[in-house]
């Protein structure tokens, strides 16, 4: 499972996540979603640090961010 999941049907393709991603891990999809926008996609999974900058700047709640669970860590709810 990737660290960042973009919801292609909420995304309006504004590009803010792309612009604010410090690791340049985000790109825009070629295809259009139902609203007619090119949604964001995680291009470079490896580069992503789960810093959540993309989620913070997203105006459309289209981003979920995950971190790998360390050994022994409890699977808790949303931080």
């Amino acid at each position, binding site marked *: 499972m990737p660290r960042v999941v973009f919801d292609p049907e909420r995304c309006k393709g*504004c590009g803010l996540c792309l612009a604010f991603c410090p690791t340049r891990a985000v790109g825009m999809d070629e295809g259009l979603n139902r609203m007619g926008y090119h949604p964001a996609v995680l291009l470079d999974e490896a580069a992503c640090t789960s810093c959540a900058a993309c989620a913070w700047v997203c105006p459309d709640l289209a981003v*979920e961010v995950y971190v790998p669970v360390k050994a022994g860590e409890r699977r808790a709810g949303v931080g």
Partner: protein
Amino acid sequence: MRQIFAGTDGLTQSTTIYCPGCTHGITHRLVGEVLEELGVTGRTVGVASVGCSVLAYEYFNCDMQEAAHGRAPAVATGIRRVLPEAVVFTYQGDGDLASIGMGETIHAAARGERITVIFINNANYGMTGGQLAPTTLLGQVTTTTPGGRSAATAGYPIRVCELLATLDGPAYVARTSTHNVAELHRTKKAIRAAFQAQLEGAGFSMVEILSTCPTNWGMDPVRAMEFVAKEMTATYPLGEFVNWRRGN
């Protein structure tokens, strides 16, 4: 994988009518998160105003009233006085709050009305297609200042936080911005402080949030954020103007 960022229960699931990249959406999320984190969503009544955020009643996951243009603080006052236990907030644009609603804003603040005002300063009237707002920068082009805002005919930008800071009623007044992640963190902190002021009965609270209107500014969302960072903060310095905890 553990989820560290997800939707907030402070907002409904609706997608918004905001233009792509408009920071209205970001601010909604921050307010929703604060309501959720404070655990007050179930006893909150929000007041939507007339502007691009007119449908805010569809987005905040709490009871909502839609106020007439500019009158949100008066509507909130009515709610506040009738429901002493509720959390009451308004969400207003700069046209709504600082132009047609200037009287209601100042008087709610002077009364120390225990409401929280989320004030979106995007330097123009978004909803009606980009006209002059009281907060439009000097020289800024809008549909009603086609040659750029000239002080001689259209006057000077109004700094609302500074105005309210001269009053005795406000408990918390701050100006923050949306132009990068750090500022968004600060904005969320300010929103939380504003609601905290209300919960403690300290008085009126407001957070002015410098925001973008990519559509009417004719900029892409990223350029718009740069405009906020460079141009808007020059006219509208960020900071806390009143904080009941610090006693200023």
